[in-house]
Each structure stands twice: as structure tokens, then as C-alpha cells.
């Protein structure tokens, strides 16, 4: 029968996310953040105590009291892998970090993107000039090519990716909205289970094949969230998901 990756509800979309897993979460600040998927996962944690001890991979570490910040507040997150754990309102992460209750792996932004891309592309390691000679390169192998020094970086994969898309067809072909694209196409390729909330689910063929940004083979589950919330707007409105 014709392929259909849509699921009935948020609970089904998030099934199988377990304690200790690594989650890549799309978005750069509030742009592209899959708030409904995140909040539904928080709901599950509140009602069942799971998933916890999660490693979250995102450029940032949450803003205000919603989204990733609310996951941190709820106590679901053991470790953040990110480039910039600051924001307009970084309290959720800052408090836990300074209390020693959350681990931080700080990765330069371009290296973070390239490591995720490498994870999706089957490239176990690559060399980059970024961070050479700095504290963030400590302990990493270095290599010299054509007289210039580089740091060897490893791929980054995850158990799950949570992604916000604009259009999704039932096969999982995706488009994104404006700069909401950011890390999401990379993360979709680097996770074992890629879960997408899309503003609109359409029939295969309704997205021009030349305009597909994430081809469907990277996507496992799709749920339509027509009126998704925007993290930045929630944060500015002072909303706390608690």
C-alpha cells in the first residue's frame, strides 16, 4: 500500500523515547523549535516519570520557561550538547549548570552542524580548522594538511530527532519555513528515529520534487500541528510550561 508515515496523535508520535536516550531537537532559538513535540514529551514525563536522563542536542539550551528550558526545569535532561547555552532568559539551564546538576558539552556552532551532518552521511570523522589551538580542541587529535593545522572531530548521531517542518507529505518529504530550517535537515538525517511535526500534511506529489529539502527516507513519523506555538512568542509572553 502507499507509504504513510503520519501518526494519530502526539503520544503515538513520541512512542519509544526512553530514559537515557539522546535527542536532537531542531531549531535555532525559537526559529524551528518543535514546541508541541517537546511539550508532549514533558507531559509524558510528568505522568509516567519517563523519559529522563536525556542528552539533548540543540544549538542553544532553552529560553524562558518553555520548550527545552521547560524540559530542563522538569528535570528530564542530564546533558546538553550545544554551542550557545545563553539566551534572553537562560535561567533554566544556568541554574542547573551552576548547581552541577546538568552536564554541558560545548561545541562550536559550525562544528556542531558538521558533526551532525557527518553522522547522517556516514562520515565517522573529519578535520576542521575550527577551534584549533583553543581550549575546545583539548584532547582531540590534530592533523596537518598543506601546512595548516586542523582538529579531528567525530560524527554525532542520536537516538531520536524532533523536527518542525512546514509541509510534509505522507512519505516524509519536508519543507521548512524561512530560517526555521537551520539544523533540522541535518538532525533528520542523523537520528535513528526522526519525528516531525508539520504545519500541514499533504499528499505525495503536492511538494515539487525540486523543492523538497528533507527527502522522506530520513523521516519516520509525521504529525500535523496546524497552529504550532512559537518559542520566542511564548517566552516574550512570559509563558511557563509547568
Amino acid at each position, binding site marked *: 500500500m502507499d507509504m504513510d508515515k503520519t501518526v494519530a496523535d502526539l503520544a503515538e508520535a513520541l512512542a519509544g523515547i526512553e530514559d537515557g536516550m539522546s535527542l536532537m531537537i531542531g531549531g535555532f532559538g525559537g526559529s524551528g523549535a518543535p514546541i508541541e513535540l517537546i511539550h508532549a514529551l514533558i507531559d509524558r514525563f510528568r505522568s509516567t516519570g519517563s523519559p529522563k536522563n536525556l542528552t539533548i542536542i540543540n544549538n542553544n539550551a532553552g529560553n524562558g520557561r518553555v520548550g527545552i528550558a521547560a524540559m530542563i526545569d522538569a528535570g528530564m535532561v542530564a546533558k546538553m550538547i550545544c554551542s550557545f547555552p545563553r539566551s534572553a532568559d537562560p535561567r533554566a539551564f544556568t541554574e542547573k549548570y551552576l548547581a552541577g546538576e546538568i552536564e554541558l558539552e560545548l561545541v562550536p556552532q559550525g562544528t556542531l552542524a558538521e558533526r551532525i551532518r557527518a553522522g547522517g552521511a556516514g562520515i565517522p570523522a573529519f578535520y576542521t580548522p575550527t577551534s584549533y589551538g583553543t581550549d575546545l580542541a583539548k584532547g582531540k587529535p590534530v592533523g596537518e594538511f598543506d601546512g595548516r593545522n586542523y582538529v579531528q572531530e567525530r560524527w554525532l548521531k542520536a537516538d531520536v530527532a524532533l523536527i518542525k517542518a512546514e509541509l510534509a507529505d505522507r512519505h516524509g518529504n519536508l519543507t521548512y519555513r524561512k530560517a526555521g530550517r537551520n539544523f533540522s535537515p541535518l538532525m533528520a538525517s542523523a537520528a535513528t528515529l526522526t519525528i516531525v511535526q508539520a504545519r500541514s500534511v499533504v499528499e505525495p506529489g503536492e511538494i515539487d*520534487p525540486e523543492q523538497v529539502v528533507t527527502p*522522506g527516507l530520513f523521516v519516520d513519523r509525521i504529525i500535523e500541528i496546524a497552529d504550532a506555538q512559537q518559542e520566542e512568542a511564548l517566552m516574550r509572553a512570559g509563558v511557563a510550561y509547568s
Partner: protein
Amino acid sequence: MTEKLSNAQIAWRAAQDIQDDSYVNLGIGFPEMVAKFQPPGRQAIFHTENGILNFGESPAAGEEDWDLINAGKKAVTLKPGAAFFHHADSFAMVRGGHLDVAILGAYEVAENGDLANWSTGPKGVPAVGGAMDLVHGAKRVAVITDHVTKDGRPKLVKRCSLPLTGVGCVTRVYTSLAVIDIENGRFVLREKLAGMSLEQLQALTGAELLVQGEIRDLSAPENLQ
């Protein structure tokens, strides 16, 4: 009873193992034939190295669009839900383990899973294409091939004598005589033609065939096109 399966029958047999909703790459040439024999009710999505997902059959003669071709440079069509992407993204799909199965041809397959399918030796112009990429990454790498060469020598061997395409990469071989899995560095016989004895098959095979449990009859419809 057939003396051996035709190429179409080998392709048909391989197609029966492609699960619904699979992402599949078929090597250029003979393996392309597998697409014709998808069981009714199942849908596989085909990937081609040059940047298309979910392409379909050849267009009618005269209807070709030469910007819409597969890795074998043959004109194809699109199915609903197709996508275009560039070559680095295409091989990210391959190398990154996103294809469920790749089905390739072979000059030789060794019992340790080594595959030789790109070069018959130092003569002529060497050409590798995407074969060395495809053997790494797809979750399952299968081979379809005649059981023996045109002059009767085994293509399933203890160790490849021709230049390798990949090391330890093949997990199943569909031949004109048998279906054989490669497990722990050994050929494990799963199916053989009913009219052929194990001894006859072994005599045409360059390494020992292990028997574990039932050996099913290998059969395929007649008159496949």
C-alpha cells in the same frame, strides 16, 4: 522443471524479499530488473545515485527527458512523492545507512562477504561508479548473479581473485540455482532448485555450502518479462 532460473526469475526472487515501504538502490544493468517484480500491495521507493528518490519506469520512446535519468543514464519517470537532491546528499543516503537494501551484480562473491564487481583486471579502462559506496551503508547488501560464469567456473568462491569492490559487505546472494546467505564468513544454503542435489550444487560452488535447518525449493514464475 527449469534447469536454471533466467535473469528475470532471479530478479523476481530477489524482489520477493523487499519489504513494503523499503528504500532500495538497484545497481545499473541486470539489478535494475528487480524493480519490475515488486509483489502486489508492496511499495518500494527506489533511489538512484544521481539524485532522485522515488523514480519510476522508463518513459515511452520519444518521451525521454534527458535531465531525468537514473545512474545507468537511462531515462526514467517520477512517482508522486519524488525528490531531487545533489550528489553529496545522495551518497549521504547511501553511506549513512539510510537505504534498506542495495541489490548489485557480481563477478565474484566470497564466503567472507567480499564482493568483486567493478573490474575484471588491469586491461582496458577501469570504471567504478557508485559500486564501492553502495556496498557500504545499505542495511542489507544483496547480490543477484548467475551461479557460474559463462565458461562454467564458480562465481561464489572462497576468496575473490578479482579486484575487490568491498570487504565483507554481502549478506545474501540470489543465483540462478540457489539463495545463499553469508553468515560468519560462510555460505549458508537457504534455497535451491528442487531438481538439483546438494552435491550437484556444491560442485558448481567454489566454497563449502553450509546447511542449517530446512533448505527450501527455489522457484519463480515461468515466462517472466
